[in-house]
């Protein structure tokens, strides 16, 4: 059996991790579920987990982000409970990307609306002559 663990990171205004957990329990699928502060972790057979999560994503397609996880939920080498607190390995990566998720969600909404973003003009580097003028003007 090819088993897999996936984590759902929830950044939604209408769905809470507890709502997702209830929905997962309702499905009666043979998976292990763990609710966390950032979302939910689901572990089980690959096909079952993938099918289940594609259904769960429909609850809020712009507010749920899913990735695979190497470790099982509650793995003693990762879990803060058995590591005497402190940030869990991988937390900082998750925290950094979690801040970007609202913007990414807006990007996905814009994509579904068919918006084509305007090409951003690249900032040009400061011209040497211009810099020299600035320095000359700044001199007392």
């Amino acid at each position: 059996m090819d088993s897999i663990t996936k984590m759902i990171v929830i950044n939604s205004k209408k769905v809470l991790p507890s709502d997702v957990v209830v929905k997962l329990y309702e499905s009666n699928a043979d998976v292990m579920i763990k609710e966390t502060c950032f979302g939910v972790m689901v572990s089980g057979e690959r096909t079952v987990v993938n099918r289940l999560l594609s259904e769960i994503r429909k609850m809020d397609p712009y507010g749920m982000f899913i990735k695979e996880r190497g470790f099982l939920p509650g793995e003693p080498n990762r879990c803060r409970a058995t590591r005497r607190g402190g940030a869990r390995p991988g937390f900082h990566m998750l925290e950094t990307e979690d801040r970007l998720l609202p913007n990414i969600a807006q990007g996905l909404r814009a994509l579904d609306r068919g918006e084509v973003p305007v090409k951003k003009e690249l900032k040009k580097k400061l011209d040497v002559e211009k810099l020299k003028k600035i320095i000359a003007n700044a001199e007392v």
Partner: protein
Amino acid sequence: MKVFIYPTNSLILSDLVERFGHEPLAVMQEISKRVNTPGLDSPPLNITPEDPKLGLKYAAVEVPSGVRGRMSLFGPLISQAEAAIIVRDPVVSFGCMGCARTNELVNFLIRSKKIPMLDLDYPTSEEEAKEFVYKISQFLKSLKPAEEKK
């Protein structure tokens, strides 16, 4: 299609690649193989002394074993990659995946593979995020769709 992502543990890239119908090649699946395969005995990551030897395929013997050990994780992903999405200088590469030499080597190897590749920066505003998502979707649409894994 199998799409290599960098940062290799990125949630956003992994999610977007899967959302647009492709298979992300992320380091989590390599870690999972090591951690969940019975018979390995070097917890927590089960990186055994064999791994730096496997890394010799990518880096010379005088290169630190940390680089070679990491390459034993990234190497199989790079060899499977059929396309790549690279985020330039992610701030997180200073953290958990903060081995600058490995990151340079990974970027070099993926570029030298001459596969379809998309270079991006992490967005800092909503407008940039829209462009970020749009570019990724266009890039992934231009690739052949992934086959369902059984």
